[in-house]
């Protein structure tokens, strides 16, 4: 059998901390990744996501806590002895070996019978659509092709977990979409466990079964793409995943899971999401806010500060006594001119309450 199979296994972090001297890169993180899922670690640079990934690979050792892969404790195991492969941001193809030799490289150290190695490597190249490129040097391939070689090289080892460290950041925008779809397809076809690091929220939303948002060395939120987008747990997540306007608001009352929220003259009924009466914050996506005529009931009075027509939609910045609000309007037939007095209306669903 020389097909590429999957040995997908789960990954579990139990209170893992990583310190470099006095600097804490990852702080008491617990994480549970099911076998066969694609989970993305998302966050701004320096949030600890790459360190987390490298701890799964065994390239960094946890300072505290326990790491389990497939239920086995691997906390002290170095990279060589873990059944994990990684696709690097720079691809890290060995420049002195041909594409074929690169893909065969890991097989040579994995106890695969010598005669099976070429077939297996070829199967890997077939899988990523580079069947006829085996004899080339990495430098003779385009960026996207190099990327695929890196994927093939990791895949042929049939690892328990496959890791991607910002795999698309060296590709141009068009290729990026294409490659990420390919990665997702291979992952789903083979049922691989994939942990994927990126700082691009759109990429994360597009490929993931689950997204773990990290900020300042801890997990900010962990959930499905839809959860994160539509029900962010806090202001950071709301703003990091898509843009969001964050307002201070007041919860007047909560009954039957529905909160009555006031925001100056505006009153809204929203899912309470565990909040109790008092001060709270409201996050609203730019597309979930509308520009209405001035003095429409239940709107915030404001004035258009900036107005930009971008073809498919119009973008406004409206200044109100609650601060500046960014709005995207689908109505391109009637573009409001700057300095027009308007009312800001909130869509019935969309704005969400988050903790103060």
């Amino acid at each position: 059998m020389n097909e590429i199979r999957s040995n997908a296994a789960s990954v579990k972090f139990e209170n893992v901390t990583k310190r470099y001297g006095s600097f804490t890169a990852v702080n008491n993180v617990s994480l549970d990744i099911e076998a066969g899922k694609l989970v993305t670690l998302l966050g701004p640079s320096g949030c600890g996501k790459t360190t987390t990934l490298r701890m799964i690979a065994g390239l960094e050792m946890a300072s505290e806590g326990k790491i389990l892969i497939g239920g086995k404790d691997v906390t002290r195991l170095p990279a060589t002895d873990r059944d994990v492969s990684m696709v690097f941001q720079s691809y890290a193809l060995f420049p002195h070996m041909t594409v074929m030799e690169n893909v065969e490289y890991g097989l040579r150290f994995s106890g695969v019978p010598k005669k099976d190695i070429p077939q297996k490597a070829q199967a890997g190249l077939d899988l990523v659509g580079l069947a006829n490129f085996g004899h080339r040097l990495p430098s003779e391939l385009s960026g996207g092709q190099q990327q695929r070689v890196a994927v093939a090289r990791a895949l042929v080892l049939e690892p328990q977990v496959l890791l991607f460290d910002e795999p698309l950041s060296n590709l141009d925008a068009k290729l990026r979409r294409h490659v990420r779809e390919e990665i997702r397809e291979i992952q789903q076809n083979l049922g691989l466990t994939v942990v994927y690091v990126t700082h691009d929220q759109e990429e994360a939303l597009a490929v993931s079964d689950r997204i773990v948002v990290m900020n300042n060395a801890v997990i900010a939120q962990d959930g499905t793409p839809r959860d994160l987008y539509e029900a962010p747990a806090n202001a950071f997540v709301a703003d990091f995943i898509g843009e969001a306007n964050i307002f201070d608001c007041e919860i007047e009352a909560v009954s039957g899971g529905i909160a009555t929220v006031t925001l100056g003259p505006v009153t809204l009924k929203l899912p309470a999401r565990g909040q109790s009466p008092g001060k709270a914050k409201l996050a609203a996506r730019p597309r979930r806010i509308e520009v209405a005529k001035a003095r429409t009931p239940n709107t915030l009075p404001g004035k258009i500060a900036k107005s930009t027509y971008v073809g498919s939609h119009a973008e406004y910045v409206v200044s109100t006594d609650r601060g500046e609000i960014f709005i995207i309007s689908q109505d391109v037939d009637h573009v409001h001119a700057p300095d027009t007095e308007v009312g800001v209306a909130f869509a019935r669903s969309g704005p969400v309450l988050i903790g103060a």
Partner: protein
Amino acid sequence: MRAANSPTGLHPTVLLWLAVGWIGYAVLPWYGLDDNFFLLGWLTDGYPLNDDVAPALFLNLQGQKLWLAPFAILLALPLLLYGRPKNDPLFGKLLMIVGALGMAWFFMQGFGIGLRGWRFEWLNLLFGKLDDRQFGMGYGALLTVTAFLFMFCIGLAARGAVGGDVFVVSSIGFVIGTVGVFIFMPVLQMLANALITPEGNYSLGSFISKIFSERLWSLGCFTGTRCGVALNSLFLAILVGVLTTLLGLVFALVATRTGFKYGKLLRALTVLPIITPPFVIGLAIILLFGLSGAVTQFVSGVFGIQPTRWVYGLPGLLIAQILAFTPIAFLVLIGVVEGVSPSMEEASQTLRANRWQTFWNVSLPLMRPGLANAFLLGFIESMADFGNPLVLGGNFDVLSTEIFFAIVGAQNDPAQAAVLAIVLLFFTLGAFYAQRFWLGRKSYTTMSGKGDAGVHPRLPAALEKILFIVAGFWALFTVFVYATIFYGSVVTRWGIDHSLTLDHYVKSFSIGRTEHGIHFSGAAWSSFWTTIEIALISAPLTAAIGLITAYLLVRQHFKGKEAFEFGTMLSFAIPGTVIGVAYVIAFNVPPIELTGTGIILVLSFIFRNMPVGVRAGIASMSQIDKSLDESSLTLGANSWQTFRKVILPLLRPAILAALVYSFVRAMTAISAIIFLVSARYDMSTSYIVGRVENNEYGIAIAYSTVLIVVMLIVIGLMQLIVGSRRIGRRGVESDQMQSRTNVSSPVVQPSGAG
């Protein structure tokens, strides 16, 4: 799935080193042999029972050298680990204990027992008189102690050091062990020697009186007598440092800032100090300005000035050292001058500064660290230079030659030599320390090769003119000096009979035919072949230990790395004469008895030139992205496999460079060698110096010319190989490859001590 290591039998690496240990103890002769070990003559000399060639086991069985018996017990202990896995706590602990005890016992018996029984009085009191004696250790001892070292390292790794990586821990252990035994131990022994009084006692008082003596520090030259040796050296070194820096800067500016078309030709100058044995310039100066020198004769003929011996001493030394070391300063400064970001200078010009103001206020201050660096290199080189003072010094004594005469001269006073060596070491280490911690390595790494699109502005016209004149004059002078060397080798007797002849070459390098075939009858052949042989043996060893050290420094993190780095780079700053003295003192008596062998020459080259390999390795390894290693590790290769399959192949140009430079340096070195050569192992350089002392200038110069040509060929071949590699690749990669092959420049810069 990756195959898990099954814990059956003995761990293979332990088994390997255990076997090595037993071979050392029970199979190979424990003590050093009179003959060359590899000729295997010892096998027929009554092996294994004859005392001279017996392995330790057979000595013990015959009831001799019983202090070696504990090794047998220690070597048996690891067998207890049979069937135990690596993560068994006993595994690491036992190996560490066995290794540590083995090494400790090895050195205790080595140093505790001397030529005449116990070395120290308290051992006599403790154990009573010992009727036996120690001999120099041989290959058996070497293998056994190596085995203990590596068992200790495996134990450490099993206990989790450096991520449990056996290869990395063993490499660290190996480097520390060898550097400790062949650099620190001899230097420390030499320091201890400085405390010995002529009566053979240790005394701090006599040491202090020696180190502050008039001979070293007298300020007499200001009052009409002579200055102290240390002050002479210091004075010369500062002068040479300043002047070579200035001249180097002139050349660097001419090459990069004046639109000079033959910059490449100038760069070729930098190869000169690498291929020129250090004293050759001194010889040429004698041929030109000596009593019967060409210039002297000419001047006295035309102006009627009485020829004098003015050139012997400070003036001649100054000229010779500036000639010899300016290319080094040039090499450092050309990087610095090019490294000044053109956009800084362009910014300055757009802010209405003219060329002169820009140069003075922006360019020059930015070069300051590089200038200081060049000065310190010149300083160290001059301090350590031995060849030129030897042939040109006259009455102007400097430390390096004084050390030599204290050992070999009528004085034969190793304690005095040790004191002088300490002073010299103090100066060079001071400069080395300043260079490292005050300047860092910034000036080497300013060239990124991208990002800056600007063009360096031209210099002010007047400055340009001055630079051209100075550089032109000095370049002509250099050419003239080298031409003199060549010309001097083909005249009958310089200054007296200028008829052309090939006699000197014939005398040294004639090849005769006898009935047995070709016969190398020339007088120089023996030392020439010895030199080539020693250089060929030491070059790969130097490159290997240098590259491994570089790998540890660039790629690994471990406790005490700073100290490790400092220790390995230290031999840069230790002048050759100091190493020479230290080796003579340390390796003349058991347990390590090496004087008079070829091994001591090889060892001195390895550890003197090791930094060359380290630099080459660091320079090119930092060009290799770390993710290559990491991806190899995540693909299941261990660190040794990664090193062999990924790093080494990518380092090929650096390996070649390290090989060639350590070869060439081994051929040109004189300072350490002159203490270590023997009748059987004479080297070219010391042979040449011998001819100079006998006033046989013709032969000396002819021989030097041959050496220069040989080394030119070697370097040329290397350029050819490294160069053609690049052509074979496609253009896309050439960027990357080029940066990797450009290791030759950082290699040469800090050639340390001549």
